[in-house]
């Protein structure tokens, strides 16, 4: 195991903040009180909240130790399928922290916020060109929020036509957030299965598409990592009944410069800046979920919109068909700064190369691990490939056991048990920023684990061994929830 990155080292224990607290300590520098103290009416106030009392070093050491219990992209390969855990460039952080961006107040006024407006306007144009759409909103705060915005636009489109519809078609290979976003608009999900090749068949869509169906939500490439090559026929079927096609662009990292979703029948698409455009995932956000639309949906975009007149920019709110506002201000601006920096650092060729190499890395893993792991859909994949544990099941070893063992080898496991179409899914998305050597190490680790599954299954069942904690009792956590200290 020496060749693998995983090893053991000194890890520090660290209690909860309040266990370290000692009355009288304070870690913040307080400004001088240079004005008179004015007490509020005592009926309005109470004793200060019982927050921990610590010194500055207490706080620094606490969070330093906590951070050392985490695994990030900077620590090692993080092939979490459908999450696009690519390298997060550090220059992006420098750009977002510039005083002119970080200190800008959202209500300063258009005239005094020209830098922010210009950047947002340009980013909208760039994302429009990458996806082949006419207009983009940057307001949604995350991918699921973008989905909601997109579905609200479809809802508003049908309302404007004078007849609301009640259903939406969602394939089994769509992202889990899709049905939940649709139901917030009051649409009933009509679930359809993908065909035997793992992609949608036009006749299956035709069988359920009718004039009471608002449209279809398609993830392309889908969550099996396969390109939905019937997308145009499917779009034609949906359009012929007056429906619209929602594209989940979470997997855009596979097709930049190759396919423009706006050119192949998709009407509205969300992107995840924290996936394709390299902004950090932050342990679960903040992300950003811009939405791109064609001409027919443009009037429904959320407000405010940005318009350019000569060389100046301003916000416009007066748009009669808009779905309204979906974020308190304009969305996650500092995330937009990072994505903008990434796009300018990559250029058109760089983005296209990124997609090609992401697809190369995934296909390389697929071919290298085929046979070691079962590959339910043996077809050319896009940016990710999905195996399962059918071979290891003979030794009573599951995907979860293999995932936990990978931790000991120094890799973050792939996405497991998703997509639901495959039992025991093991969904690998390496991304383009992993080198051949790192990928080879990952492949070796999986092969070594597969060998262990045959020879020493008990070890796998008890893995991991090198982590701060071992497997945790999630059932007990949910049965008797303890959500605060």
């Amino acid at each position, binding site marked *: 195991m020496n060749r693998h990155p995983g090893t053991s080292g000194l890890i520090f224990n*660290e209690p909860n*903040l309040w266990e370290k607290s000692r009355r009288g300590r304070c870690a*913040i520098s307080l*400004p001088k009180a*240079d004005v008179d103290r004015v007490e509020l009416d005592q009926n*309005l106030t*109470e004793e*200060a*909240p019982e927050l921990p*009392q610590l010194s*500055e070093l207490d*706080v*620094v050491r606490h*969070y330093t130790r*906590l951070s050392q*219990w*985490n*695994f990030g992209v*900077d620590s090692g390969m993080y092939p979490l399928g459908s999450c696009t855990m690519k390298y997060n460039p550090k*220059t992006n952080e420098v750009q977002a922290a*510039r*005083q*002119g*961006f970080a200190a800008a*107040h959202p209500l300063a006024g258009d005239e005094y916020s020209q*830098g922010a407006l210009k950047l947002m306007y340009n980013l909208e144009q760039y994302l429009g060109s*990458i996806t*082949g759409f006419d207009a983009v909103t940057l307001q949604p*705060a*995350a*991918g699921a929020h973008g989905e909601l915005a997109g579905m609200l636009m479809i809802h508003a489109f049908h309302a404007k036509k004078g007849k609301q519809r009640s259903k939406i078609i969602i394939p089994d290979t769509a992202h889990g957030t899709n049905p*939940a*976003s*649709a*139901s*917030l608009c*009051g649409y009933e999900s009509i679930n359809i299965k993908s065909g035997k090749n793992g992609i949608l068949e036009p006749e299956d869509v035709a069988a359920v598409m009718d004039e009471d169906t608002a449209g279809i939500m398609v993830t392309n490439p889908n969550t099996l990592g*396969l390109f939905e*090559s019937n997308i145009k026929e499917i779009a034609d079927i949906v359009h012929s009944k007056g429906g619209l096609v929602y594209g989940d662009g979470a997997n855009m990292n596979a097709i930049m410069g190759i*396919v423009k979703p706006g050119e192949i029948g998709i009407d509205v698409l969300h992107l995840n800046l924290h996936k394709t455009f390299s902004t950090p995932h932050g*342990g*679960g*956000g*903040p992300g950003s979920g811009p939405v791109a639309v064609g001409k027919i949906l443009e009037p429904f975009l959320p407000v405010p919109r940005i318009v350019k007149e000569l060389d100046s920019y301003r916000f416009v709110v007066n748009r009669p068909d808009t779905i309204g*506002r979906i*974020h*308190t201000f304009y969305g996650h601006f*500092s995330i937009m*700064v990072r994505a903008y920096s990434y796009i300018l*650092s990559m*250029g058109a060729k*760089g983005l296209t190369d990124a997609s090609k190499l992401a697809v190369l*890395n995934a296909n390389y893993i697929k071919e290298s691990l085929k046979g070691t792991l079962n590959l339910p859909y043996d077809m050319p994949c896009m940016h990710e490939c999905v195996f399962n544990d059918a071979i290891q099941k003979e030794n009573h070893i599951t995907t979860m056991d293999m995932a936990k063992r990978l931790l000991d080898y120094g890799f973050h496991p792939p996405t497991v048990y998703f997509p639901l179409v495959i039992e025991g899914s093991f969904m690998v998305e390496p991304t*383009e920023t992993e080198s*051949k050597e790192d990928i080879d190490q990952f492949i070796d680790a999986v092969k070594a684990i597969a060998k262990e599954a045959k020879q020493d299954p008990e070890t796998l069942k008890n893995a991991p061994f090198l982590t701060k*904690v071992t497997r945790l009792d999630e059932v007990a*956590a949910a049965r008797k*929830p*303890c959500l605060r*200290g």
Partner: protein
Amino acid sequence: MRYLPHTKEDIESMLKVTGHSNLDDLFNCISDDLKTDKSIDIPEILSEWELNAHMEEIASLNIACKDYKCFMGAGSYDHYIPAIIPYLISRSEFMTAYTPYQPEVSQGTLQGIYEFQTMITELLGMDVATASHYDCGTALSEAALIALRKHKKSSQIAVSSLVHPNHRQIMQTYLKPAGYEIVEIPYTKDGLTDIDALKGMDNIAGICVQSPNFFGNIEDLKAFKTVSDDKKILFITSFTEALAYGLLKNPGSLGADIVAGEGQSLGIAKSFGGPGLGLLAGTKKQMRNLPGRLIGKTLDTNGDEGYVLTLATREQHIRREKASSNICSNNGLNAMTAAMYLATAGKIGIREIAQQNHDKAVCLKTTLEKAGFESVFDKPFFNEFVLKAPAGFEQKRAALINEKCIFAGVKLEPFYPEFKQHYLFCATETISKADIDQLAKEVQ
């Protein structure tokens, strides 16, 4: 490109394994008519040096220079961020991880967010706080949906007209497609939500009141709780300035069932309005209704304590269309930032900072009144208040921004057209007495 590690030899040997003759062949599974023949129309690639120059040029088009003085709030506040916060939050183990699906290698995020949940429940006097939401407006919209789903007989919710106008707009966007309606509770001439008007409202599923409200005034939340009890509906409160609860009675002790708030004040840069931090907390009874992630404590196989994502059965990836919300990624890193801020300030610091915010705001108000501004409401406030400006102020305000980088208040008229010439002022601990005197002198 420095982010792409593949050498020519790497590509060749990998293509041999995949069985393709070149990179373009990898896309043979996509028919040509689906491929684009248009290039991506973006500027030419920039080196890191060029990028720095370009970005500084754009950033400097925003008037937010070093000597910047911000007397504006209205949902985004200028507070001092201690040096250790950006330093610690930049640790890449926090920043470059994702949702803690593998708890064994995510204990840092998990314990950190568990501590965040704990400190937020303490700050707000509530039983349960979620791992975060996008911002206050979206959290409040989700809270309203909880009330509406619970109270099936009614499709209307009463919302104070002094809830942040942008938050009310978001609620409108979220509620309308599901067939729900917002009924606005008017405000009184004192700048408070009109509780008598509320009492007369029938067939409502819940009540939403912001305190301190958009005018900065502190609402009598307890009185609203009595009304919601009478009507047997949920009482939802919101706030835009989290530091207010370093000083004020918390919403939990005043009877809130659900609290939605904005946590940007807790160590997070204004960043032109985002990302901020949506806070969402509830009583124990609401635990399973709250949307979004929750972290819980448990034991590992050795009997050691650890943390996991829990109660996931409420969430979209399990419940799909039956989930209470579609939220997946939240604002986790900003929740961690807020936790760091709360731990840094502590019980002593948060009280002193909150008190100073109030003191400076009172000083600013008195000083501006002496300089010719008119007081509008005579009610207790935290760090924001409304004043009527003397004639000619608008021109002076513009000149102050252009010449001195001083932003004197938020114009109220775009939000409340009936308040011509009125401004919402804010003073925080970053404002000194000298700043206040300078402003008064300039606008006199």
